[in-house]
């Protein structure tokens, strides 16, 4: 669900290995053909996509942590079942995406190691804490809402396996957003204290959610190449604007105030936001957000504590194979 600032490409395709093939490749992209795993592709296309898809996968996996934090404390069985299903979906999304990334030639183990070692990035939004139950509502409503804006165009991305994975993800994502909004509606119709909790969550999440769309267009690196390759179909600012315009009336419905006193509607009907604090974004991406260390530590612990399961499953498969070989030899 969560790409963010990930869709920047690794340089352009200058000095590409084979000009004629590169031209043919671009012609296929221009004709809206899908590129499949065994097709020829420029090295930079492969590298860009491997990074984007695997970082997207890492984001799904790390994204289970802030919400998993509330499963045991959900206020009712209905909410608990829905949250559990949502977190399971995030895991599934991570797995679809890892499988898509692997088709580009990097093994699952290498991809996962990249995340655990801190070398690969994941969406900065998951480095913020979930302090109250209203945060779970806000994540579904806004974080998943922003993710949907980002992901719908990815269903038409030029790389076949990624586009197909995104179609599955998008189908499931709409439940996430609706369950989040329902939590917000319930809180906002509740006691004054509950409504204040909802407002507080919106106050904390609003700006980090706007940052999910990545840096503003004028400073976004290499985004031209991703656009040329049809990995990216809309710019960061276009998607951010679409998201804000869709969200303002929803906040009004809830009776909540978006924490941007300078926000105003222009003559085209678009809501213009105040400047975003990009230093905060850079700090969080650099590893200095409120929860970066916790998140990585939790992933490493889970990976290490699961090692014996992976080893046992491998040993069992080996044992069965050798027994079958022995029986066949008899």
């Amino acid at each position, binding site marked *: 669900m969560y790409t963010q600032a990930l869709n920047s490409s690794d340089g352009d395709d200058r000095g590409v290995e084979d000009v004629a093939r590169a031209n043919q490749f671009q012609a296929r992209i221009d004709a809206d053909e899908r590129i499949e795993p*065994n097709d020829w592709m420029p090295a930079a296309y492969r590298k860009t996509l491997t990074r984007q898809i695997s970082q997207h996968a890492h984001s799904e996996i790390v994204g289970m942590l802030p919400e998993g934090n509330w499963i045991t404390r959900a206020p009712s069985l209905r909410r608990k079942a829905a949250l559990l299903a949502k977190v399971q979906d995030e895991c599934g999304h991570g*797995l679809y995406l890892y499988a898509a990334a692997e088709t580009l030639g990097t093994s699952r183990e290498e991809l996962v190691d990249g995340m655990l070692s801190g070398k690969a990035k994941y969406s900065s939004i998951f480095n913020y804490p979930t302090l109250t139950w209203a945060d779970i509502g806000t994540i579904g409503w806004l974080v998943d809402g922003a993710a949907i804006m980002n992901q719908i165009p990815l269903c038409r991305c030029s790389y076949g396996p990624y586009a*197909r994975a995104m179609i599955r993800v998008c189908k*499931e994502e709409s439940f996430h957003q609706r369950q989040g909004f329902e939590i917000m509606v319930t809180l906002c119709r509740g006691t004054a204290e509950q409504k204040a909790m909802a407002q507080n969550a919106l106050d904390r999440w609003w700006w980090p959610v706007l940052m999910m769309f990545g840096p503003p267009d004028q400073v976004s690196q290499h985004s031209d190449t991703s656009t040329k390759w049809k990995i990216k179909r809309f710019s960061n600012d276009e998607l951010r604007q679409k998201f804000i315009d869709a969200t303002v009336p929803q906040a009004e419905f809830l009776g909540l105030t978006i924490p941007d006193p300078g926000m105003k509607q222009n003559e085209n009907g678009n809501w213009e936001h105040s400047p975003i604090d990009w230093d905060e974004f850079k700090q969080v991406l650099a590893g200095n957000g409120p929860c970066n260390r916790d998140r990585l530590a939790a992933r490493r612990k889970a990976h290490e504590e699961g090692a014996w399961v*992976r080893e046992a*499953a*491998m040993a069992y498969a080996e044992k069965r194979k050798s027994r079958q070989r022995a029986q066949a030899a008899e």
Partner: protein
Amino acid sequence: MATPNVPLWEVFIRSRNGLAHKHVGSLHATDATLALQAARDIYTRRGEGLSIWVVPSNAITASDPAEKGMMFEPAETKIYRHPTFYDVPDEVGHM
């Protein structure tokens, strides 16, 4: 330490009686039993299927995309294999 490579499986699901199994994605599992269980968890969380096949990826023989021109050219030039190639007079109606 990186875990050794766990085998890759391709997953096929038959959604309803009467339809064919369709490729839905892939997963890693050490053996067929675990692959089936993982396929159930990953690909059928919303009643997507009535039957699952898992096939070791390396057991699949695929046509070479570089040769797709030669491979599929014979059919491309035989448009008379399609019903729309034939003219049926309007008076006859739907056929």
